[in-house]
């Protein structure tokens, strides 16, 4: 599905990613853990196409296509989705209005017929139920005045609407109560399929009880310093990251 090779990225002259290598096959779920500031969100943003980050070396292929050449919206059309760690509030822009336009553009990009108004509404209803987002919120401005948990649910709602092939969830579990966590996990599990891949960024093993990853990676100073099975998450929760740093695994 996605191949990240020796990816280096910087912002305003600060080197944040220092050679990330990662390959995720279709149907797989990978988790990335790592200390604050290690570059997890940066990796997510670079994959989604945020312009502020400059890719200085390396390449990323999504289903054989060079991802780094694409604009963020083209990446969305190609099937990339990022659930933001900090979803943006956009006053005056209605959730529904923007999703409708976004879906229309994606369909247009793919050369497919747009959804009819009826189909769209049906999808909205179904997915709202899936993530437990009240219809009241869906009609408000994007994330404006949403609680932390509501914002995260809204991210999953949008993911369900856009039906991506490769979804990155950046700390979608942070700030969720246990019920919300289950709902979000259910949402992901229902979308899971042999054609889809997920990259979960998290600090907590807890999420991985509900969404079971195939691999767990540790990102440290912009590099993946360890990869292991789902049990690695438990070990990290117990021991923290210091033992990895001390190992001197840096390249």
């Amino acid at each position, binding site marked *: 599905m996605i191949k990240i090779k020796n990816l280096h990225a910087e912002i305003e002259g600060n080197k944040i990613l220092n050679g990330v290598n990662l390959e995720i096959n279709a149907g797989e779920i990978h988790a990335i853990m790592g200390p604050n500031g290690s570059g997890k969100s940066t990796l997510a943003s670079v994959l989604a196409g945020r312009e502020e980050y400059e890719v200085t070396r390396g390449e990323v292929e999504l289903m054989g296509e060079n991802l780094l050449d694409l604009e963020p919206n083209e990446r*969305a059309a190609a099937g990339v989705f990022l659930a933001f760690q900090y*979803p943006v509030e*956009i006053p005056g822009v209605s959730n529904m209005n923007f*999703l409708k336009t976004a879906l229309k553009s994606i369909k247009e990009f793919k050369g497919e017929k747009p959804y009819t108004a009826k189909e769209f509404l049906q999808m909205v209803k179904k997915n709202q139920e899936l993530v437990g987002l009240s219809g009241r919120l869906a009609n408000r401005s994007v994330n404006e005045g949403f609680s932390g948990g509501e914002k995260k649910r809204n991210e999953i709602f949008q993911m369900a609407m856009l039906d991506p092939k490769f979804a990155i969830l950046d700390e979608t579990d942070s700030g969720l109560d246990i019920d919300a966590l289950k709902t979000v996990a259910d949402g992901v599990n229902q979308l899971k399929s042999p054609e889809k891949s997920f990259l979960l960024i998290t600090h907590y093993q807890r999420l991985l009880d509900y969404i079971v990853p195939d691999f767990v990676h540790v990102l440290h100073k912009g590099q993946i310093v360890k990869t292991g099975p789902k049990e690695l998450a438990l070990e990290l929760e117990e021991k923290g990251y210091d033992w990895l740093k001390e190992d001197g695994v840096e390249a």
Partner: protein
Amino acid sequence: MSMENTEKKDKFLAGLMKNPTADTVGNQQQLREEAYKAIHSLNFPTLKDERWKYTRVAGILKKDFEHKPGDVPESLTGFEIPDYKSDVLVFVNGIFNNELSHVEKQNGIHVLTLAQGKVEHYDVIDKWMGTIADHHSHIFTAMNTAFHKSGVLIYAEKKAIAQHPVHIIDITNGEGVTHAPRNLFVAEDDAGLKITHSFHGDAGENFINGVNEVYLGRHAEVEYQMIQQNGKKSNHIHSTDVYQSEGSTFTSGAFTVGGKLIRNEINVSVNGENCETRLNGSFMGGDKHHFDNHTIIDHLVPLCNSHENYKGILGGKATGVFNGKVFVRKDAQKINAFQSNQNILLSDDAVINSKPELEIYADDVKCSHGSTTGQLDEEALFYLMSRGMKKTDAINLLVNAFTAETLEYVSAEALSNYISALIEKRSDELNNQYA
């Protein structure tokens, strides 16, 4: 004034004075002559004048402009507002066009050209014209007063509430054209009027020098929405001078999506208790456009509310000016005055000079004013694009959201939709000046 400047001024005025219009009924000719005298004692403003600090009119004065007829369009397609039922008065280069205009008769509401009004309602004109706009100290108002040819008189008798709005369409065509629309809107006690005024033009260089006088009697309501879709070489100076009596509500909008040099002045004298004054506007410039909004709300008496909200979006090398002055006079207690100007600069070369000003001489008042200028929200843009929106769509959506507040007081939905669509179209044009 230096010799050289006097010569320049005389030469410029000579162009404007060709084929003069004279009035024969009432005091109107006297008013013209008074204004004509004032012109000679006044100077054209320079950047040294506080009120014109950021707006240079020298470029206009260098050119030769004349009153001359223009091409009359075959139909109103492209000028009319879809689904907006209204009386329509069409002017081409300041000359009234009867064929394209239509007015439905209503009890107590009189909608006619100023020229016609000067004959049929000369008493109304004599009573109000020249009493609200200041032709004694403002040279452009003096020029309009002395040289105007026509315009519109809308007169609502006591208790007459217009059932539909009036749409004034001002089209300017050709090279080197000038005209000076002069409009008088009178709403007597308990009367109600809604007026939309749209400006359109071709690519020719022109100079429009307009004046509106608006009188609101006790408990009268007037809504005046101005839409400037001027051509790209249009110079347009427009003064709207308003007098509010007790319990009246004045609402105005200024939506500028065209033109080269635009200067809109609104001066509201609030001289009765329990009045509402709402001034809103959005201006969207690119290239080297210069758009200037100057407003004065003068609270002379207690117990009034004023609400002012202007938004600017500037790309390319455009300059915007916002100067909003609110006076609260001594003893004008319990005034609520809100004023805001927010701007988005799409490029590094765009400039805004924003100066909200409060001058308060009373002590029991609630006033707030603020001005912000920033870039387009990059995070929001990325967020929208990451969901699949094209960059242009995302920018348009953000621009529309930003300007939406200024449409809050546009009462007709068809009009509000029309203005939104213009804003979106303009946003599209400015997209390529986004850097």
